[in-house]
């Protein structure tokens, strides 16, 4: 009798080619999509908190709505744009990792913006106070605010990465779960479940969780170093 856990351990130890490929595709998708979202979202989020202008409230609400964008809707949108008859068909991105990254960036960026905005909003008055005391200009006040949010950036990144690695609706739609090309952990688990192979599905789930644990520990360590 083999439990799913034993199977997970055995799969990892045996260096199964397909498993390594699935993990590699997952990382090739998750790392760029979460990093790009972070690069786009952090400045936008902090800026949104820092500036005050007409219609800011509406923007915040719009962003919060996008935070709840269902992945399948995002997947469908990308599918229609990039499919063989869609307006962006010439890029030939259908069923490729870059399109999966695009779909995920659309999903994750609002989450990063929202997360940074609500954090920066809270500390902005104190930072302004300090900046006024030091006689800093507007630009340097903004930089000060950015540097004050650096601790939050880590947990925001983890949130984005978690969303990216766990997401299945959009990536299965635009990626097509093609073996050795666009099959990631979550779509592979779906495939195994479809075949009634729950043990292997759960084994992959354990590996997915372990990857997340390793990343969390790493980031926690870096975060700890930085805050010292």
């Amino acid at each position, binding site marked *: 009798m*083999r439990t799913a856990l034993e199977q997970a351990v055995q799969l990892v130890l045996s260096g199964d080619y397909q498993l390594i490929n699935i993990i590699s595709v997952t990382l090739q998708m998750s790392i760029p999509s979460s990093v790009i979202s972070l690069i786009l979202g952090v400045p936008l989020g902090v800026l949104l908190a820092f500036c005050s202008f007409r219609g800011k409230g509406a923007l915040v609400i719009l962003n919060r709505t996008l935070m709840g964008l269902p992945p399948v809707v995002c997947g469908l949108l990308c599918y229609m744009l990039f499919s*063989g*008859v869609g307006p962006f068909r010439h890029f030939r991105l259908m069923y490729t990792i870059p399109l999966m990254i695009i779909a995920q960036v659309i999903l994750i960026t609002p989450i990063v913006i929202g997360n940074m905005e609500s954090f920066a909003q809270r500390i902005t008055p104190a930072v302004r106070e300090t900046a006024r005391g030091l006689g800093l200009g507007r630009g340097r006040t903004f930089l000060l605010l950015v540097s004050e949010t650096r601790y939050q950036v880590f947990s925001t990144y983890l949130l984005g990465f978690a969303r990216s690695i766990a997401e299945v609706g959009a990536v299965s739609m635009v990626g097509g779960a093609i073996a050795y090309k666009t099959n990631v952990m979550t779509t592979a688990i779906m495939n195994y479940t479809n*075949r*009634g*192979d729950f*043990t292997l599905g759960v084994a992959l789930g354990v590996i997915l969780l372990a990857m997340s644990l390793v990343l*969390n520990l790493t980031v*926690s360590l870096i975060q700890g170093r930085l805050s010292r």
Partner: protein
Amino acid sequence: MKHKKLISLLLALTMVLALAACSNTDEPAETPAETPAETTPVETPAETTPAEGVDLTILYEQDDSMLNTYSLLAVNPDAPFVDADGNAVSDVYINVEGAAALINWMLSQEALDLAANYGYEEYGEYLFYVLDDAPVSTAEIPAATEDTATIRMSTTTSVNDSGLLGYLLPFFEDEYGYTVEVTSAGTGAAIANATYGNADLLLVHSKSQEENFVAGGYSYVLDGLDAERLPFLYNYFVLCGPSDDPAGVKEAASVTDAFALIAEGEYPFVSRGDASGTHTKEISLWPAELGITTEADSVADYTGWYNYSNAGMGVCLTMAEELHAYILSDKATYLTFRANNGVME
């Protein structure tokens, strides 16, 4: 930060405990010894005792109306493609040479022999048979070039889940240097995918939907072959259900009688509900007066026993197992499903 670590660890621990608790049900896989009879309709013999892990049993099979024919169709590069707003789109990229190469290979004697023998070693039964009148191609297959190397095949979950393509395609890929990208969905979705210009060829199993695809101008006749739709493999759908068979379908004279018995007694039934080939076949087997179609509305009155699930074959089999329900499945997926619930070697 400390408690973040703790939470992660706790989560992992909970998962492990849950696994330990639920993975004690593995049972040895049963190897059916019976070889399929070629012509006479047979029912599953009584000595086939199901594995303890799986109660779902084949109750009715190999009736002529349970034939399940798989066809190949090349996607026409000059098809009347339209975008989401219905505007004509002319320059849709289709890998014409690659699709032709793969179709000619699939219809070569070599590939047909491979397909015919697939699964016998693992399951003790043939999963696919070659049609007597399958078109056989002797065309020369060109090696892949940079432009033609990637072939996009849209197929059904049953072909993919049974492992047939995973077994066949490497022979083709290794010899000629192509890469075949397989996406799988129910036949309805697989065909829709091709009409959106996302596939170079189709391997599907729903005659009426294939004929609509051809009639719409989406397929074309390849050089050396004489039709758009190229039926080449077949197997049988099987009616599965709880081993104690409360509706008594085992004794039914025909499969339509068997379905009538299920409807009469309102025994739970799981339907794919996804416009797949299996779903299309299933609705053709119900008594006409029930008025069951592929639309969900048509079964609104039968929700007490008819489960319109909108899911893949494997998921539906699992559901049928849980609900002690009857279900129509292609044989290949059912055998894979049963094998995977036993101990995997």
